[in-house]
């Protein structure tokens, strides 16, 4: 795993910060939709519909915190939360963090196997386990995303590329 040797300039925080805020809102909406619906707000249904293109929303496969199934399934909730936490961590530290790509394959395997098992009708993981398994995959995606964003901002602000280079490169 690799981190850059120096912090990114303060100005480079803006874009990852905005993306983190959007990701946070998106993740909060997952819990907010059933909460609003439980409190008889018409917004709950629309908010749930917003998540429809990216998730099957089968109620049995969604986590329930006590006011109805969340707006996305446990796997998607884990991916969203993991990604948001990684973005938040990187933005707070103001330092890009780029894990070795092999970790992407390692953390993707359980989620892919569970997905395939589900599609084949084989017994698959429980909701909380599925959530926990997806969490690191989302986190890793979040780390790569924030690394990419910070580098784009840095290059567009006219800074050199020597101070942020990662030691990892895929051969």
């Amino acid at each position, binding site marked *: 795993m690799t981190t850059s040797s120096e912090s990114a300039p303060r100005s480079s925080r803006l874009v990852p910060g905005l993306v983190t805020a959007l990701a946070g809102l998106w993740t909060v909406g997952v819990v907010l939709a059933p909460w609003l*619906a439980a409190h008889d707000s*018409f917004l*709950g*249904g*629309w908010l*749930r*519909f917003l998540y*429809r*293109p*990216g*998730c*099957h*929303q089968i109620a049995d496969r969604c986590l329930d915190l006590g006011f109805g199934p969340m707006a996305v*399934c446990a*796997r*998607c909730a884990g*991916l*969203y939360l993991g990604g948001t936490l990684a973005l938040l961590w990187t933005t707070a530290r103001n330092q890009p963090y*780029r894990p070795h*790509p092999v970790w*992407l394959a390692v953390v993707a395997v359980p*989620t892919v196997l569970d*997905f395939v098992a589900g*599609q084949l009708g084989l017994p698959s993981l429980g909701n909380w386990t599925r959530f926990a398994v997806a969490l690191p995959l989302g986190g890793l*995606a979040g780390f*790569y*995303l924030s*690394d*990419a*964003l910070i*580098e*784009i901002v840095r*290059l567009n602000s006219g800074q050199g*590329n020597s101070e942020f*280079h*990662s030691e990892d*490169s*895929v051969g």
Partner: protein
Amino acid sequence: MNQAPSMLKPALISGVAFGVAGSIPVINWINCACCALIIGCGFLAAFLYSKDSRAAGFAFRPGNGATVGLVAGLIYGVISGILGGIISSALGMGDWQEVIDQIQMSGADIDPEVLDGITHFMESSGGLMMILIGLFFALVLGAIFGTIGGLIGGSVFKVEPQPPVHEQAPPPPPPVG
């Protein structure tokens, strides 16, 4: 001097391959996992472009990944939107009533009169309107998630620029005499 590799080839390969996969009814369920097919489309395009860049001796940066991912995502949108619409129409799936059922299942509240009006319009326009709506959403989702996939790929497959080679002055000739 080498020329930078074209983005179109990796974007086309990835966009067409994933677009066809995304229009096949059972395979497109993969998109139920956070639009994984579209993210994969951008990711593959970034991988292919990073390979081309490395071979040509050019740097491959997350910005390149985002761009090639965006183009691949748009190609995905066009292919899966049109092909998926045709396949759905041919198989008798994806009619407007299904969309209304989905809206009602999600609990969204719509005025029945408005819904009737839209339903009448959709039925009078035939399958074309459904294909156009599907194409629009496929393009929007393709652009967003293709770019995300390309950004992730851009970070994973980053290729640093080669340091400039400074020409060294030839060593002085040995003293004579």
